[in-house]
């Protein structure tokens, strides 16, 4: 009855009306899942609020080079062990060291990298996810 093109159009219209998952995580928490799912680990949840109580923005975003974009830093464990990014503090001296895998890798598997409670992420998550999938 319908060609493939028509079915896709109808599916698109209906899917655009579907409900996105409403997540209640703390405002500014960053879910990082650049490599975790593929590596069989839970994604990382970075609690912005917890770090903001202890450090000013400048420490991470100027001194340590964290770009202000979720997923923009391509952090992996090798870099962390070498003292880059999270490893600059999570080295057993400033804060607890990297062997505590489960404290960072606490996210639900299968979630895309994003900043939580951000209005922009609610608008762009689907698009970004599609772009990522097409690149992979």
């Amino acid at each position, binding site marked *: 009855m319908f060609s493939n093109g028509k079915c896709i159009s109808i599916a698109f219209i209906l899917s655009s009306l579907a409900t996105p998952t409403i997540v209640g995580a703390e405002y500014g928490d960053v879910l990082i899942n650049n490599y975790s799912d593929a590596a069989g680990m839970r994604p990382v949840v970075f609690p912005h609020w917890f770090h903001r*109580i202890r450090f000013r923005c400048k420490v991470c975003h100027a001194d340590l080079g964290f770009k202000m974009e979720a997923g923009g830093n391509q952090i992996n464990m090798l870099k962390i062990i070498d003292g880059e990014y999270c490893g600059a503090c999570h080295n057993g001296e400033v804060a607890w060291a990297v062997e505590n895998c489960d404290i960072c890798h606490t996210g*639900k598997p299968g979630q895309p990298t994003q900043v939580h409670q951000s209005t922009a992420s609610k608008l762009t998550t689907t698009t970004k996810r599609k772009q990522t999938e097409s690149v992979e």
Partner: protein
Amino acid sequence: MKKRWSMAINMIRYLYRLTVYTFFLAAATGSLQAAESLRNGKQVYDTACGACHTAGVLQAPRLGSQEDWIAREKQGFEVLLSHAIKGFKNMPAKGGNPTIKDKEIENAINYMLVASGFDQYAQKPVKKEAAKETQQPVAADKKEPVKKTQTSSVNQFNRLMQPSSEWNPAPAKDGIHDPESPGTLLLQEPKVAFDSLSKSKSGNRVDWVKALQGHEIAPRYDRLSDDASPVVMDLNIVREVKGSMPDVVYPHKQHTEWLDCSNCHPAIFIP
């Protein structure tokens, strides 16, 4: 002749496609509108009223507190309804969400009164036409009509308008942490950390500028040193706005207490 026939056939095909698409669009949007048509009192309360009426923000009568409601209830239901619809004192019209229908406001007031101990309102019938409206969408769209209502709600979209019951959830309940992970239970709950900090109306409900100024927190300016202090620049940049809005004032002071110049200059703002 042949050309004319093929044009006519193409025209009929085009009209057929147009009809099919219009039908599906109408069916989809129609079912959505129907699902939106009427929410019950609790649903309206959770998305609009609860932000103030749960905690009693700005003297709002609290849900469940008969003492808060008794004088108001004496004025009569119609007065309460009128205040809620038009706004009254600190309460914005329709809780700040103009998309809520009058009948939904009625349902919400009814819900709050019953929950606050005025049992006589438990019998208050939902108007017949309203009851019909709620039944129709169920027949038209049986798949989770409530969820669709939430999707299109302004308040669900706007993170600043969450009910207070959803503020600062514990990691195991926030939706992004895995409750099965052993690490999740080791994490500090945001509410515990925020308890002593100055409050704000948005974001994670902490006023970080006040918390810093009031020495409620002492975040390091250097990774390793407690003694390093920022170079604070006290300079307001005023940008004139066309139209009726007041000018924009950008305060360097509060930003340089947290950030380095290189965070904004020159990549985002050319000085």
